[in-house]
């Protein structure tokens, strides 16, 4: 058993870190304040292949692995949670299911532009009455000749309106329950597909979170992903992968807050000395660092499991559960160690604390992760 990263993973981390420090960090505060989607950063990442890291070269991807992708999301999220989730939602929730369940024609038409960076991806499962209970889908798709006619809506969709390609879950046969749910590939611009409210959020404020509305939206039959009625299973498998991305985002937020706080406590002086000289600070930093490292090991283990195991639901759930709770705890401690300054928007830890909370909620709440883990044990 070896816990050291390979040379290529270390070099990839250097690349992602340099990019994050130089291109992403200077914009993070502005992206949060203005709630403007960082399109310029996304274009730069597209050119460098950051949007197709774990996808095979055959379709224009980088031919790396899930671990490299997780390290990318981690390093981006260390400086900007918004940028981290844009890459995560695009890669795990849109490119990955097309790669896994799509036909060769669908991969050529949709996966190639997604990974080469021409197009951005998103995923629509959540509805006003189908959150944790994702089986309660009310969006319907009815096959009429060669087209599915889609009616309904989705909410809280990351990369909404900014994305070009969407994976949409809809009920094709309500009588079959979850076995009546199917997955579709939907392109922006399709008649009947519009965008509703943009959410005003506590954190990750630059990520576009939109309501998607379908009104007699016609999807060509060939855009059905995989088989009819298997969509719920595809969505659950997709979310297993997505949880690794969110766990990596949470890890990055925690690790970024820790780095920022270490630098701060060395500089900040009270009672005539640097506050890093006080045992309270030292013990808190030690606890934060230990939790960040434990989270990192779980996230990397889940990433490796995705590439080596057929089923990795438990690994992904544990990584997301732990890393997201560590993110909330560590970013909160980071604000505490910054004192009053940490509560102001002049300091990044304030934003990191707001960004962290969502990692305990989206792509399966912490409670759902506990259900997945215990369901496998009991």
């Amino acid at each position, binding site marked *: 058993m070896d816990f050291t990263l390979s040379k290529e993973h270390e070099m990839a981390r250097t690349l992602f870190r340099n990019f994050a420090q130089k291109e992403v960090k200077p914009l993070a505060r502005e992206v949060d304040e203005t709630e403007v989607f960082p399109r310029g950063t996304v274009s730069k990442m597209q050119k*460098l*292949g*950051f949007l197709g890291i774990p996808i095979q070269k055959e379709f224009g991807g980088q031919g790396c692995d899930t671990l490299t992708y997780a390290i990318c999301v981690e390093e981006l999220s260390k400086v900007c949670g918004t940028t981290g989730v844009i890459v995560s939602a695009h890669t795990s929730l849109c490119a990955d299911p097309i790669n896994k369940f799509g036909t060769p024609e669908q991969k050529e038409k949709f996966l190639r532009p997604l990974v080469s960076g021409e197009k951005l991806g998103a995923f629509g499962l959540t509805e006003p009455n189908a959150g944790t209970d994702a089986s309660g889908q009310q969006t319907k798709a009815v096959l009429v000749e060669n087209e599915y006619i889609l009616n309904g809506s989705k909410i809280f969709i990351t990369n909404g309106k900014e994305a070009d390609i969407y994976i949409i879950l809809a009920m094709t046969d309500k009588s079959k329950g979850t076995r009546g749910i199917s997955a579709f590939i939907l392109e922006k611009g399709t008649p009947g597909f519009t965008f509703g409210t943009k959410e005003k959020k506590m954190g990750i404020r630059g990520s576009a979170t939109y309501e998607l509305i379908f009104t007699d939206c016609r999807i060509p039959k060939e855009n059905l992903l995989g088989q009819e009625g298997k969509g719920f299973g595809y969505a659950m498998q997709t979310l297993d992968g997505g949880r690794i991305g969110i766990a990596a985002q949470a890890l990055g937020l925690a690790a970024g807050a820790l780095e920022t706080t270490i630098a701060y406590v060395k500089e900040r002086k009270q009672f005539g000395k640097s506050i890093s000289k006080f045992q309270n600070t030292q013990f808190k930093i030690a606890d934060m660092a230990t939790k960040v490292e434990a989270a990192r090991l779980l996230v990397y283990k889940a990433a490796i499991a995705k590439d080596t195991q057929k089923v990795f639901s438990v690994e992904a759930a544990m990584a997301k559960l732990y890393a997201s709770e560590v993110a909330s705890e560590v970013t909160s401690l980071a604000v505490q160690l910054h004192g009053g300054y940490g509560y102001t928007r002049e300091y990044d830890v304030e934003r990191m604390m707001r960004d962290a909370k969502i990692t305990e909620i989206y792509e399966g709440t912490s409670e759902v992760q506990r259900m997945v883990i215990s369901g496998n044990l009991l």
Partner: protein
Amino acid sequence: MKIIVCIKQVPDTNEVRLDPVTGTLIRDGVPSIINPDDKSGLEAALRLKDEIGAEVSVISMGPPAADAVLREAMAMGADKAYLVTDRAFGGADTWATSSTLAAAINNLEYDLIITGRQAIDGDTAQVGPQIAEHLNIPNISYAEDIKVEGDSIIVKRQYEDRYHIIKSKMPCLITALAELNEPRYMTPGGIFDAYKEKKVIIWGRSDITVDDSNLGLKGSPTRVAQSFPKSIKANGQKVNLDADESATYILDKLKEKYIF
């Protein structure tokens, strides 16, 4: 067109700390990077590759750990990499280094050689021009712009107060400034290819043809007489004045010093 870029692995001086007691550099734990001038030279070569098509080879003389900077160069887009490494080459000054590198380059075909102007850990700016002398080809230093025209190269050579436009037939050697360009990032796939698909070719003493008297410590005529930390200049003065007041302030200071 075949381009050879010479690169050196150096400690990242932004990360180097000084030992407060001895005043010497603490190199432990300091990340190694491609020397910045060399990285711009590599970027210039890769841009020529993008524009007119070229095979770009990178070559480095150094310890086995220099493998990392050659992989990084391939992750940026270099096609081939050569590491010239042997205990016999150790302790080399600029003369022995340039003799060794020139001998290694003699094993390869080339139209253009690009080196960085100087390394941030040595600052001699001698190795590039010396390689050109050993190979008996023209050398153009301090390149800030490079263009290819037929079998010639046109270089803008930058000085502090002026520049020269110089045209030379190839083969020739150019030394590049970090100001030449903004080097590209690696790509994740490029990194994986550099480690999994491509290889670094290792050349030792027996792979190059050069006289022993020009190699390593013994072949190095340079003697370091003394080394000392640079004296610290007095702090400057900072003033906050508007444009008119600033002009008066500067004039007064210049008069004080009898400069004006």
